[in-house]
């Protein structure tokens, strides 16, 4: 017997499991795909813990809910890099930088000299940037693996199937559409490259009127490039056009990307509610944690806390 059964071993399921165990509850995790892997859309995530930058398009609570994410992941033992975020635009698209600055907080403007000190490789490519110091990033697969190990050590199993015991917490993402018909998929495509000719120490967001791009360093010269955002439930392979746009934008930012090795190209669909905000909600006898959209690693800790509060105090927490 456990206090709770969690369906889904993606970022939502594992953070909820970790938070519940930390508060002394016993849990089991059930996922037909087994331990964290490519069937979870969080496997393909960028891993940016960027509450300020995400505020550009995300509604208000997203930034607020995401503020504690880096601390949570660090406390959970994941390897978190706190080096901030750099937001840049090619000189032709300077207006994009002004718009981004107007619509977000927590940044300061860097001139060419300050930018060169922070990311020398970008110095002669862009003449102005926004620096968001209080943001962080992590490697999603390593973080999921770490949670898995840490749960295993504490006696939590991830089973392919099993009998539900205790409270049922549904963290199945898009698969929960059978019970949450208002969920939709938003397709994202990404690439992982090894680029020894380029050195970036922090996530870089390239604002572009057509092909926005972010680059997240994974260490050892490996970078994740993401991500498209297409209104589609399709989970099939990335399209040529999407990949060309991502890689083309990177190449426009710096020609040294031309020599990078393409290690992986991936695609999946992210679960989202119509307002693109996440939910902890109770329906038909189960608790749903879902709709993390493009903010999985940023929002999962706050949702895990809310879920744990719900289980320990019985009160359904307010999102805002």
């Amino acid at each position, binding site marked *: 017997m456990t206090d709770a059964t969690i369906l889904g071993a993606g970022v939502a399921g594992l953070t909820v499991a970790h938070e519940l165990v930390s508060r002394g509850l016993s849990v089991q995790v059930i996922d037909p795909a087994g331990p964290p892997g490519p069937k979870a859309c969080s496997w393909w995530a960028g891993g940016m813990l960027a509450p300020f930058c995400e505020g550009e*398009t995300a*509604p208000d609570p997203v930034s607020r809910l995401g503020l504690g994410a880096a601390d949570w992941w660090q406390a959970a033992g994941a390897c978190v890099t706190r080096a901030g975020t750099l937001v840049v635009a090619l000189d032709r698209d300077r207006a994009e930088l002004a718009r981004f600055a107007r*619509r977000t907080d927590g940044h300061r403007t860097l001139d060419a000299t300050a930018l060169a000190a922070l990311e020398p490789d970008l110095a002669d490519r862009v003449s102005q940037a926004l620096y968001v110091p209080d943001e962080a990033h992590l490697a999603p697969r390593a973080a999921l693996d770490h949670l898995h190990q840490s749960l295993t050590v504490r006696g939590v199993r991830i089973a392919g199937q099993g009998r539900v015991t205790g409270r049922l917490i549904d963290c199945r993402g898009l698969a929960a559409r059978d019970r949450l018909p208002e969920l*939709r998929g938003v397709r994202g495509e990404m690439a992982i490259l090894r680029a020894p000719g380029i050195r970036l120490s922090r996530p870089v967001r390239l604002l572009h009127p057509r092909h926005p791009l972010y680059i997240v360093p994974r260490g050892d010269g490996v970078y994740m490039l993401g991500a498209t955002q297409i209104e*589609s439930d*399709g989970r*099939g392979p990335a399209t040529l056009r999407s990949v060309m746009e991502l890689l083309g934008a990177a190449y426009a930012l710096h020609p040294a990307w031309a020599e990078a090795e393409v290690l992986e190209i991936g695609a999946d669909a992210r679960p989202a509610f119509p*307002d693109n905000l996440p939910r902890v909600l109770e329906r038909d006898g189960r608790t749903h944690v879902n709709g993390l959209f493009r903010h999985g690693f940023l929002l999962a800790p706050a949702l895990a806390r809310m879920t744990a509060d719900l289980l320990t105090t019985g009160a359904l927490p307010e999102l805002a």
Partner: protein
Amino acid sequence: MPVFYGTEIASPLMLGTAQYPSPADLSRAFQRSGAGVATVSLRREAAGGDGSGFWDIVRGLDIPLLPNTAGCHSAREAVTTAHMARDLFDTRWIKLEVIGHPDTLQPDPFGLVDAARILTDDGFQVFPYTTEDGILAGRLLDAGCEVLMPWGAPIGTGLGLNNPYGLRTLRGQFPDVPMVIDAGLGLPSQASQAMEMGFDAVLLNTAVARAGDPPAMAEAFAHALTAGRLARAADPMEPRDMAVPSTPVLGLAVLQ
């Protein structure tokens, strides 16, 4: 209100459905503006999945849908996309875009006329995205189009009506053809200007979707269109060089 292929629409605002912060913002923008037509692009959304979650939201707007062939660079591509759209949305309407240049996104006039003819012969009701060129407009009408959609400025630039002379000439050349200013609008005042010039409707997306508050901007455009339409109908004064006082100056009392 404008009539396209026999269908009267409820508002001269035709609004796109792409690029909103969220579908909830999209729905609110349509509600607050009372937009008469929703345009939908299906190329990417249809790729690799049925996109059903998003389509359900778009269909839920409950206004006429105008699917488009956005991103097509040849007549053949546009025709294929139009057929997909007809199957998916069950409508004969198609906004025909055949892009001639990847950077400026300006229409390819030759491919446009070819595709318009093929689609019209196939029973489609074509809304061609075109320039202000009057000769091209004539060819599109010859090909069977009963609506024209001249650009204000290149797609997504927000520059407004780049060539008011050319647009005025086009309007004057074909006074009875319903015409929609499509693309390039950034501000409601530009939409007013289009209506004052006698255009029947405007079609826009980025100006609303990428505003900080899309529903508020959509409403602003709706008001601007009403203002422009009323002004046009009210027969505006002619500009003139001679200053004319609006208060008579003769017969003032002498207060000494």
